[in-house]
């Protein structure tokens, strides 16, 4: 079954993704409007992946995190760096490892 890809980003990043064929882009302006849109996207059926930039996710803050915890298997939400390349200092994966395994573990290989 095929699913659509959606991007939530600032205008320029969104333009880049549009060039790659991600037609459904949502340009972030206000927090409330984006949250409403995000809810709508999470509830709809035909969407496979949502890309959201780190800076927007950060701006949405706790509301975003709560939605991530409550969401179903689909759509997959992936946070990406925007055009400035900004990535939060806390590595989310590391965070998950610490929570589940109970210890910070550094995996060798990769970066």
């Amino acid at each position, binding site marked *: 079954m095929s699913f659509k*890809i959606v991007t939530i980003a600032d205008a320029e990043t969104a333009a880049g993704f549009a060039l*790659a*064929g991600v037609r459904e882009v949502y340009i972030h302006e206000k927090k409330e409007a984006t949250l409403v849109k995000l809810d709508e996207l999470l509830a709809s059926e035909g969407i496979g*992946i949502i890309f959201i930039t780190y800076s927007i996710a950060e701006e949405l803050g706790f509301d975003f995190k709560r939605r991530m915890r409550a969401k179903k*298997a689909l759509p997959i939400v*992936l946070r*990406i760096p925007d055009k400035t390349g900004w990535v939060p200092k806390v590595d989310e*994966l590391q965070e998950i490892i610490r929570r589940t395994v109970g210890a910070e573990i550094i995996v060798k290989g*990769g*970066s």
Partner: protein
Amino acid sequence: MAKTIGVAPTRMELLKLKQRVSLAQKGHDLLREKMDALVIEFFGIVKRIREVRAGTMQQLSSAYRALSICFAMQGTIETYQAAREVTKVAEVDISTRHVMGILVPVVEAKPIERHALARGYGIHTTSSTLDDASREFERALGDLIKLAELEEGAREIALELEKTKRRVNALEYVILPNLKSMVKFISMRLDEMERENFSRLKRIKAMLEGRE
């Protein structure tokens, strides 16, 4: 503090409790094995994520660079216009695979990289920097889709791992000690009754012998 209130110190109860202890023990062992398997799976995925992520981020940043050049060379409005004209839509196929009873998504991207003519904007009015930017973004998108699959898998496994861990701990630190202390309580009580009975019989015997 162990719970011993409300347990009738009878042999029946003891047998039942012993059965429950062995069942809990078995469940605990099974869950523990499941947890170990999940941890192995989880770290396999984490390792792959690290590798894929590094490559993806590099690709993405070069895509952004190409896009910036395009914005500068061709003009902002023209680039937005071209982005709006892109016709072919990138889609993904998503199926699932089982890992220890958890559904992990498997994402397959339909071919994303396209020929410059197939993108939908007019090549007559646009510059080659736009083609570069599009190509870079198509590549980045392919990588990102792969990364999304892996991260979602890791998330699902981590959630299950957390749940399993909680269950193992509950069994190990609450339920099993409770049951064991109940078993101990009952067997002590039964032994005590045994001894009481023994001394009573002795006494009766002595009384009977005294009467003769």
